[in-house]
């Protein structure tokens, strides 16, 4: 019987399978950031342990950093909130103490850990990758087995080089056919979460396949794998193809010369065999996917831009009806209203889901020569890394955003999780390119609608959600 991509990655890192169903899996790369690592280092210190393999690790501050240029220019001293400053300082101190490579705050390579990793080639095909962050699934776009872990597991990987895991089930989601113009990796991701639900992939590694997935750029595939966790799957995967190799070959930490040839030979085997058997399969028709907008407080509460907010009376169970009523009350929406009648106050373009150069270009293409609507009180564009920022500026995209009345910020996680000063006020409604629309996620009482960068830009211009294809047509 053939093997799935996940089977291959699992078997090539299997140190020991135990009778109790658990296994020791060797970890090639651990990404560290300031929020979920301090307690792990503290644990290491208290137990008197040393890192198993220092070179397995790379650290970068991202979650809690300021995105304001003035504050950033002062380095850590510019972090006004003392609790945040201590956390950022602790990452620097721990990396210095254990000699772990760290890309510091104002290095041009600094950025969101899931943007920096692939960009630097710190995460490569065939690797096992962990990070104390659930969106580690992003790196699966390069056919790496990557998943988010808790802080105790961060400590475990630091100390042992391994993770204790149970093998997950194989789930393949195929998106076949041609995507309509204006429909992106983000829309595919949201459509899949809508289809299988936020717990649909629990206990599974999801391999994304099909012609529409192969047709996505690496950035688009990262967006898709990033949101595997919103479908409950700890890991998302896409097979290696020429595009993967092209992308990887241009990164600083990629192998070179003879080592590249050896790696390429191996990486080309990283796909599911034709006769591989999956525990579950779902097939979506790419042509039927429209731009998506979430209306509720869970990513599965999503519909097409042409759709309406659902009605409680249409729900089948009491729990579902109560859940819908609670979501509508929190979101301040009327049952049955048109998605296009929803008017955001804030626009957020950024996050590990959608802050790569392609995302910046997609948003700028919609905004070029236009202004943000009068009802939008704040519009933030936060590039995913210093290198994305630099590239965008070289292409003049920053000027497009500024001319439209938007703020062009320094890289970081920013308003995706609102740990820093970038957050919604109670009741504010945001068109956001991030990944979670949970209650309070972007700020206490804040209301989040998840969309693609192009759709966020379209909403910025129109002042309400609108089909980006209409905005583009009106321009051309």
């Amino acid at each position, binding site marked *: 019987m053939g093997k799935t991509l996940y089977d291959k990655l699992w078997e090539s890192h299997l140190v020991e399978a135990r009778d109790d169903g658990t296994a020791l899996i060797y970890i090639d790369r651990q990404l560290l950031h300031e929020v979920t690592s301090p307690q792990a280092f503290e644990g290491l210190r208290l137990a008197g342990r040393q890192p198993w393999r220092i070179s397995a690790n790379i650290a970068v501050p991202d979650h809690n950093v300021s995105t304001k240029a003035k504050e950033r220019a002062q380095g850590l001293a510019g972090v006004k909130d003392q609790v945040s400053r201590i956390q950022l300082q602790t990452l620097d101190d721990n990396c210095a103490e254990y000699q772990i490579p760290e890309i510091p705050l104002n290095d041009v390579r600094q950025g969101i850990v899931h943007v920096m990793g692939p960009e630097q080639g710190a995460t*490569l095909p065939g690797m096992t990758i962990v990070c104390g962050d659930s969106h580690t699934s992003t790196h699966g776009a390069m056919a790496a087995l990557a998943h988010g872990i808790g802080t105790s597991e961060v400590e475990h990987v630091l100390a042992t080089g391994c993770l204790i895991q149970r093998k997950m089930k194989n789930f393949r989601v195929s998106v076949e056919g041609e995507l309509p113009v204006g429909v992106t990796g983000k829309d595919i991701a949201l459509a899949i979460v809508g289809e299988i639900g936020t717990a649909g992939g629990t206990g599974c590694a999801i391999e994304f396949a099909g012609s529409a997935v192969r047709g996505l750029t690496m950035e688009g595939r990262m967006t898709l794998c990033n949101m595997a966790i919103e479908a409950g799957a700890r890991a998302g995967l896409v097979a290696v193809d020429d595009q993967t190799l092209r992308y990887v070959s241009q990164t600083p930490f990629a192998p070179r010369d003879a080592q590249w040839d050896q790696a390429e030979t191996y990486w080309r085997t990283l796909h599911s065999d034709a006769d591989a058997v999956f525990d579950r399969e779902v097939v979506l028709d790419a042509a039927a996917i429209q731009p998506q907008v979430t209306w509720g407080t869970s990513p599965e509460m999503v519909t097409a831009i042409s759709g309406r907010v659902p009605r409680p009376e249409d729900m089948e169970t009491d729990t579902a009806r109560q859940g819908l009523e609670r979501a509508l009350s929190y979101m301040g929406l009327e049952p049955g209203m048109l998605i296009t009648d929803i008017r955001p106050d804030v626009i957020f373009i950024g996050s590990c889901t959608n802050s790569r150069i392609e995302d910046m270009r997609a948003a700028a293409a919609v905004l070029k020569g236009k202004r943000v609507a009068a009802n939008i009180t704040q519009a933030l564009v936060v590039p995913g890394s210093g290198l994305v920022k630099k590239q965008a500026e070289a292409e003049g995209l920053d000027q497009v955003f500024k001319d439209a009345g938007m703020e062009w910020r320094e890289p970081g996680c920013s308003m995706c999780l609102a740990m820093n000063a970038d957050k919604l006020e109670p009741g504010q409604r945001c068109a956001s390119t991030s990944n979670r629309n949970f209650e309070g996620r972007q700020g206490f009482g804040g209301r989040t609608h998840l969309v693609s960068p192009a759709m966020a830009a379209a909403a910025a211009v129109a002042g309400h959600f609108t089909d980006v294809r209409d905005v583009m047509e009106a321009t051309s």
Partner: protein
Amino acid sequence: MRAFQRLEGVVAPMDRANVDTDLIIPKQFLKSIRRTGFGPNLFDELRYLDEGQPDSDCSGRPLNADFPLNFPRYEGASILLTRENFGCGSSREHAPWALDGAGFRAVIAPSFADIFRSNCFKNGLLPVVLEAERVEQLFAQMYETEGFSLVIDLEQQVVETPDGETIAFETEEFGRNCLLEGLDDIGITLQNEAVIRDFERQHQARCPWVFETLEV
């Protein structure tokens, strides 16, 4: 790690599906570099009427009188009863730390999100999976009876109700053993140091590029 063998405790409700870890412990509290102190901020946005700040005293904050965990009848509860997909979203281990800090030792639900579930096992917090119908019955019994309590016996893998009924549940063997004995799993893994080193040598021969030093 603190061991978990047998627990008798009052049951409190979190009566909704898909409770995410942002709801369990909001992001502002993740600025802390400690493992403790999160208890007063468990379900912060539901529990209080104002916005919580890290490192601030919660004793004077206005409580949300409609939130069940604020009801006197659930005071001192150590078992949380909830619905499908509890703990979804962010991988923050601050979620089990907050539940632990607020006195919870076990959570009963029809299903849990993967990362949350594994985080529980690392912190002496037992996730108990029961069928949705069973959970529904327990909700009904809990709402009916003030002070409703359950016994959870991990050795036997049963939940005992006040009227003597026992409900079997399953936990994975490794996690159960760690909980029963209060074992540190890093210590267990390091007993295999030679096996890991051996694997590492072979792996390095196959994929040498993985072992290159990252010069930042």
